[in-house]
């Protein structure tokens, strides 16, 4: 199939799916089948594009010229290919999980949920394949808007408040800072095309570069750099499949992906290395990384803890990009994939626990591991991958990121990465440890008649569709450990 056509298909397919979901909304089984088929077809289309890219192709499609000099262009390059693979691949697994979770919980407005989800995926594809900063910005905004109904899904006051913060911060930063940065770039460079080596060299006074970079970095609110990180914990009011795919994978990864795109293709890492314009960013990212980890330790709500963990992990990638070395960029890009696999596992486990027991606080989960062994095993694997232990994928991205820090001779950055890993241990492992080793409160007989309580040591897992997906992604963490080289090979061209 013609690659340019295929490229447009990746955007249109989820939208088409959304239309069919709307039409079949009355029959949940058909609707869910549509979701799965769409997800499968999308992954197939992305896979076909991947083959083309591996063969050295750069499929391009110009959709429309919005205004003179500002076309909507799609172009596949390795970084976007990786992001698209991650998002489309995990959409299949997450759709299975959504079915289990939404039905298990008896949630309302499920059709709206699936439709918005599909639109969000379409926007993510647009971000992944954007050929210039203008196109990326447009899909960045549509992603924000299409995920708003998902965050506000429950319609409670808490959900409304969370959704307001979500929309306010993401729209506020993107319109307030990012759009200014883009227009500034456009005026200075006369183009917004993503170009290997950047477009800003000699176009802008080097003393102003850090300011432009700041407008971009804080303007990309989805990367959750402090102090604009509050939207992510707020978004946790959403149903867990949303937190899993969107707020551990698609939305946040769209943020750091945009960061990488801006640094690699707008500024160019050589320009940043030469001018030191990104030095300040190293500090901010390191601070976010450590501070968010510390906050995560204080959170008793499991999803909130995972959210702060995500904020911390996103800054790994921003920090890698700020180092402006090839290892840093490669490590950051790889971390998009490895962290996505690990974090989606953790979120799906959190959701499975909620479906099975309606527990949200870690302190309530003592002894739960013995009742839900598969869920907790998957959680353990995901945690270890995020901490960065072999043989799990997370080790490779940390390895490359640390190498990037060594390359610049900034040992303190290496130290920050290591300390943060220790903090990961400190906030993730206790969850598992409590689950397996603490006595379950159910074991303490509440009254004499408690003998009639359900079998205490029996396995009481969540529905199969809630448990299987995290196990799959946990297995993915192991598989990716052995295939990380292939990913690096795909990414290599962006730093050459």
């Amino acid at each position: 199939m013609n690659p340019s056509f295929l490229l447009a298909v990746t955007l249109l397919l989820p939208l088409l799916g959304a239309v069919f979901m709307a039409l079949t909304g009355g029959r949940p089984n058909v609707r869910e089948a549509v979701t799965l088929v769409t997800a499968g077809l999308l992954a197939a289309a992305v896979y076909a594009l991947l083959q083309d890219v591996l063969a050295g192709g750069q499929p391009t499609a110009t959709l429309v010229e919005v205004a003179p000099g500002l076309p909507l262009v799609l172009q596949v390059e390795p970084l976007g290919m990786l992001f698209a693979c991650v998002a489309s691949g995990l959409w299949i697994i997450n759709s299975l999980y959504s079915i289990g979770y939404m039905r298990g919980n008896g949630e309302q407005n499920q059709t709206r949920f699936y439709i918005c989800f599909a639109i969000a995926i379409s926007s993510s594809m647009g971000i992944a394949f954007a050929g210039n900063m203008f196109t990326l910005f447009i899909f960045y905004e549509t992603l924000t808007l299409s995920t708003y109904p998902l965050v506000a899904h429950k319609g409670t006051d808490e959900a409304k408040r969370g959704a307001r913060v979500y929309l306010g911060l993401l729209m506020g930063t993107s319109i307030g800072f990012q759009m200014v940065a883009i227009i500034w770039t456009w005026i200075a460079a006369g183009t917004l095309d993503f170009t290997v080596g950047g477009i800003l060299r000699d176009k802008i006074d080097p003393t102003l570069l850090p300011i432009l970079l700041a407008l971009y970095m804080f303007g990309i609110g989805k990367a959750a750099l402090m102090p604009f990180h509050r939207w992510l914990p707020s978004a946790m009011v959403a149903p867990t499949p949303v937190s899993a795919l969107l707020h551990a994978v698609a939305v946040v990864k769209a943020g750091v992906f945009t960061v990488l795109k801006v640094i690699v293709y707008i500024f160019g890492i050589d320009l940043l290395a030469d001018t030191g314009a990104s030095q300040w960013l190293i500090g901010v990212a390191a601070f976010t990384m450590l501070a968010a980890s510390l906050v995560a330790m204080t959170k008793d709500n499991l999803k909130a803890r995972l959210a702060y963990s995500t904020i911390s992990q996103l800054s790994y990638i921003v920090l890698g990009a700020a180092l402006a070395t090839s290892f840093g960029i490669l490590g950051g890009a790889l971390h998009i994939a490895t962290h996505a696999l690990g974090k989606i596992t953790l979120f799906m486990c959190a959701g499975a626990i909620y479906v099975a027991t309606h527990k949200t606080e870690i302190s309530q989960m003592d002894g739960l591991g013995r009742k839900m062994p598969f869920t907790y095993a998957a959680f353990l694997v995901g945690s270890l991958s995020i901490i960065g232990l072999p043989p799990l994928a997370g080790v490779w991205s940390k390895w490359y990121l640390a190498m990037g820090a060594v390359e610049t001779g900034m040992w303190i950055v290496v130290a920050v990465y290591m300390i943060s890993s220790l903090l990961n241990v400190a906030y993730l492992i206790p969850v598992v440890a409590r689950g397996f080793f603490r006595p379950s409160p159910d074991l303490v007989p509440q009254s004499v008649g408690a003998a009639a309580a359900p079998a205490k040591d029996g396995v009481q897992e969540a529905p199969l569709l809630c448990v299987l997906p995290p196990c799959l992604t946990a297995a993915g963490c192991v598989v990716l450990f052995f295939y990380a080289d292939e990913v690096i090979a795909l990414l290599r061209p962006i730093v050459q």
Partner: protein
Amino acid sequence: MTGATLSGIVPHLPALQVVVPLLAAPVCFLLRRGVICWGFATLVSWAAFATSLVLLQVVLADGTIRYEMGGWAAPWGIEYVIDATNAIVLVIVSGIGSAVMPYARRSVMAEIPANQHGLYYTAYLLCLAGLLGVTITGDAFNVFVFLEITSLSSYILVSAGAGMDRRALTAAYNYLVLGTVGATFFVIGVGLLYMVTGTLNIIDLSERVPALQHNRTVHVAFAFIVVGMGLKLALFPLHTWLPNAYTYAPSTGTAFLAATSTKVSVYVLLRFLFVVFAPSYGFMALTLDYVLLPLALIGMVAATVAAIYQYNIKRLLAYSSVAQIGYMVLGIAYGSVEGLTAAILHLFNHALMKGALFLALGCIMLRVGDVTMRGVQGLGRQMPWTMAAFVTGGLSLIGVPLTVGFISKWYLITAALDDGRWPIAAVILASSLLAIIYVWKIVEAAYLKEPPEGRVVREAPLSMLVPTWVLVLANIGFGINAEFTVGVARTAAMGLLGGAP
């Protein structure tokens, strides 16, 4: 009709553009019956729209059209002059009229007493003729004449809302007083210009006035005209007539006036500022920087903040209009090609946004009878198409990508940054961020709140939904592909600043 007759008509289209709706008005009055008047007014609007499209095409292809009314040569007779700037305004005015009219039948039946329908459509046709006349004419005094036709008929359009809410009468009266002051100021300014130049033809004026840059009388004329038009276009703080007028007018009246009448006044201001006075330095040039610019900025923020606190959504949108007019005046105050391009672009885009939004509100008025925050509660489910239209219009108002609002914001900010005016860019952004708040208040009420107990409403009828969605789709269409509008706006801006288009 043969090709020969058609090509015989084309040279006279400038006259027909105004004469057809003007003569249609008394005919409409004689027709009396509401539905017949409606059909007639709709056909006349469509004819005017077709005329304006042909004129725009001719102007873009062959350049400026000059048409001598009745064959009297220019300085003695009245001349119609059409270039890119007013050709696009003609398209806006007649286009919005063509969208509002098919919609009007059901809405007018619901909102206005049956015995007034014929009068209402007559007033509408007069208003249309007046707006088109103000836009097309090349004669300064003729501008005043048509301005008065427009004003008088729009007072009627506003006061027609009295059937639903008696406050429409005071709103119309207030509009009448302030509108008359504005028109009077304008005609005093034109009179002073005539005194020193001896001509009323705009092209002649543009040749004689610049030589009188330091003439005290010209300065006074300038001040009268700017203040007079400032009142007419509702420049902050001369906007006080607008919120009530828009709130209490019938839905169709509001939609038509909001999308067209202030735009035409902005056009007159553009024409006088840059063609007649063409200030390059001194008193008049400073006015741009020290009067219009700060007022535009204050208006943008103050009116947006006022909008946030409104309970009645019509009034909320009215305040939003005042803010949006600030954007246009801001572009004008830059005085650069980029700035004027942005202003003209926003003039076009804002007409589409507000047209769509007020039409969607009219649908809500018809079915719910209440356009307050309480009225829209739970409508996301009960009137999905209407609310989807409203939300899309709201997104456009915020300036979300893929809508016309985004294109406007993009060019306004580009124009600001081009001159290195960073603080202004910051104000534009702040104002659009504030717009998120008032749009989202409505979105939350419609989608996240339950409808009031026991209220059952149906979706609006197709005859109203279709025109609404035509404008909504135009919001998206011109937002995705803005090459045409940007091109026209740039040609117009260069024409106004005297560069070769």
